[in-house]
């Protein structure tokens, strides 16, 4: 690569960031806030104290888990929109384990994790089955199943798992102490969840990069027809990628109930499933990219709370900023391909 080519690549890499900053500055000005001050608060809000950094990691963990899972389905060329529902079924299975098995933490927590993985995997598998055998496009299967999962969880919380005192829709009773993930002293962060997310990213990285199964998945994603003719069992691989993605989303669900909230609540998935789609896209569908991109989104979310406190700006502004960045990246990538095509014909 020549020096000028490198420079062009670097500029193209920075272009989306610059574009996103420009967009969000415009939004901030339109909202009547001094942009520089807002950025300062965002940055400080996410990093000024160990507690804040821990909070960022608390958000990072489920994002990283779900995005890692999504790398399987994206590699196979699938749009698994159903991550949200897969998180919730992980939550439902883990909640059942926490409420029904009276075991010490050393047994209960692994069982909850396994239960969550099974719940998420089954829900993912359902979307996959609908696609492979029912001819339902995975986007619609995922969307439909998300609604069913959310409604099921609300019903469970409102009926069978209703707290004894009063029937508010706030959530279940807090889990027994043995079902809580251990936390770092004074922080909301659990080292176990951090370990789980990191492990997931490492395993996904090696599976997609170095294994025959990863390569077969890639082949299916690029051309399922040719892959089938080459003798790859495409249906089985597609189902497995859904199950694995669901399992990791299920783990994210377990982390949410047993590490963050300590009980099951209706809005337990909190849009993480959708946000992780953006994370996976922005990372270029690479495990190495997921960690920093998820960190960025987590920081944006945590920092935005302070934007609200100090500048009376709605925290949903964080969503606007994040989405602006995703759109900018996709736009620059799109323009780049167009540029290359018009150059090469």
């Amino acid at each position, binding site marked *: 690569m020549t020096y000028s080519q490198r420079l062009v690549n670097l500029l193209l890499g920075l272009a989306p960031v610059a574009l996103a900053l420009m967009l969000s500055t415009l939004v901030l000005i339109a909202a009547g806030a001094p942009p520089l001050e807002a950025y300062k608060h965002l940055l400080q809000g996410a990093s000024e104290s160990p507690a804040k950094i821990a909070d960022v990691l608390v958000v990072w963990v489920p994002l990283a888990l779900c995005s890692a899972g999504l790398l399987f389905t994206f590699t196979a060329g699938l749009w698994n929109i159903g991550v949200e529902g897969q998180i919730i079924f992980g939550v439902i299975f883990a909640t059942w384990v926490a409420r029904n098995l009276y075991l010490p933490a050393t047994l209960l927590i692994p069982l909850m994790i396994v239960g969550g993985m099974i719940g998420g995997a089954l829900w993912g598998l359902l979307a996959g089955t609908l696609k492979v055998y029912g001819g339902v496009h995975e986007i619609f299967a995922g969307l439909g199943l998300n609604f069913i999962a959310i409604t099921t969880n609300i019903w469970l919380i409102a009926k069978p798992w209703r707290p004894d005192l009063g029937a508010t829709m706030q959530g279940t009773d807090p889990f027994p102490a043995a079902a809580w993930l251990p936390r770092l002293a004074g922080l909301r962060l659990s080292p176990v969840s951090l370990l789980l997310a990191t492990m997931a990213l490492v395993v996904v990285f090696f599976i997609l990069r*170095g*294994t*025959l*199964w990863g*390569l*077969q998945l*890639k*082949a299916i994603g*690029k*051309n399922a*027809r*040719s*892959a*089938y*003719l*080459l*003798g*790859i*069992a495409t249906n089985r691989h597609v189902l497995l990628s859904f199950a694995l993605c669901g399992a990791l989303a299920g783990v994210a669900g377990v982390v949410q109930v047993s590490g963050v909230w300590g009980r099951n609540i209706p809005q337990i998935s909190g849009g993480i499933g959708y946000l992780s789609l953006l994370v996976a896209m922005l990372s270029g569908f690479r495990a190495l990219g997921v960690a920093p991109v998820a960190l960025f989104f987590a920081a944006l979310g945590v920092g935005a709370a302070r934007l609200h406190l100090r500048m009376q700006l709605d925290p949903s502004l964080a969503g606007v900023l994040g989405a602006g960045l995703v759109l900018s990246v996709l736009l620059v990538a799109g323009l780049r391909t167009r540029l290359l095509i*018009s150059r*090469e*014909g």
Partner: protein
Amino acid sequence: MKVELRGIKKCFGSVRANDGVSLTVEAGSIQGLLGENGAGKTTLMKVLSGFVSPEGGRILLDGKEALFSSPAQAIEKGIGMLHQDPLDFPPLKVLDNFLFGRDSGFLLKRALARKELLELSERFGFTLDPEAYVNTLTVGERQQLEIVRLLSLGVEVLIFDEPTTGISTPQKATLFATLRRLAKEEGKSVIFVSHKLEEVLELCSGVTVLRRGKVAGEIAMPCTSEELVRLMFGQVITTHVAEEVSLGEPVLELRVWGVHTYRLDLSPVSLQVRAGEVIGLAGLEGSGQRLLLRACAGLIKPSRGSLFLRGEDMSGKSYQKFLDAGVAYLPAGRLEEGLIPGLNLAEHFVLARREKAPFFINWALARGDAGRKIEEFNIIGSPSTLVEGLSGGNQQRALLALLPDSLRLLLLEHPTRGLDVESALWVWDRLLERREEGTAILFTSTDLDEILERSDRISVFSGGKMLEILDASQTDVEQLGYLIGGNRG
């Protein structure tokens, strides 16, 4: 309209597809553009028709410099191209396709367009039904549709890129008559792109030969095919003669075996193919040959009868089981149903391995294996070359290289489609090696000479029926053409 291309330059990466190519076509003439695969013919024509912007050179139309950056602009200037694969919309009706590209305001003027379509097709003796769906038409009819569409847009220059690929002998005759008429009577300039010598000799009034992106020579007709071959390849090639191979045990046996799809029924067939035997399947596109191949590969379930592979009944077995039994199928769409664009050669070889592979891929080993295969099969590329970057001939070599070592039955669709003489010979040399190892081969081709030359037996298809199984040495092009047209012996 007189067309002049002067010093056209176009590179794709490090490949110089066109390196200062000049070409002149007079109004009312048919100019041949001849060259082997990858010589730069299609690129040059894409430049002329606005699909590709050149990096250098000029285009003159009737002496005036013309610039255009899209096919729409080129059509506006009077240049239309018929692509090798028809660029139409198969799920739509003929009339809808005819309407594309017209700037006729917001509402479609169907009645007017229908009248124009019928008039134009009558003028050329075409029988196009405006209400027929394009996916029910033959390739030849789709070409006719594209011709009348371009003419209705006021095109003065018509480019035909390998138009005889995939059409039958009678359709070819109609096409050639049309081309002559376009030039002689309508005064259009026609550019005929081909790698088939005899077609160029038959049709064109002048030929420009391209070799490796440059003009190798220009000849006015008449000339000899030897002259053209020398210009194309720089040498004269002689064709090999098929050797006698002793046939072995029956490999494939079909017993009153039929296939049913919503589009076409293949009437019950009984056929026995022995090890080392080569059977050519002749017929118009869509007459059932492809259906037979796909069903023999286990990709389509037969509707009746049974299929035996070396005595084993394969009814109800999956495609995987067919693969395990030593069956391989090579479809015509190399990048659609064969190779995986976006993956490189080394990755393809890893994926194609049939034996049990370890969970983790040893990439150093895989690249070494790929390197050996690439050398053995004479592929121009490296283990890290993406397959879409290979030329058509090299893609075909790669597909052959991906086949398992020992095969019982090899099913090929148009094994040499779009290949130049040299590559086609090479492909057949590899296939004949297989045959000597006892592989039975079934193949389709639109080239009757190829079928006659390469097959032991020939089966002729017409409208979903396998008409006859002929001994290749006892028949000729005339008889085959007659049968293909649906007339018995």
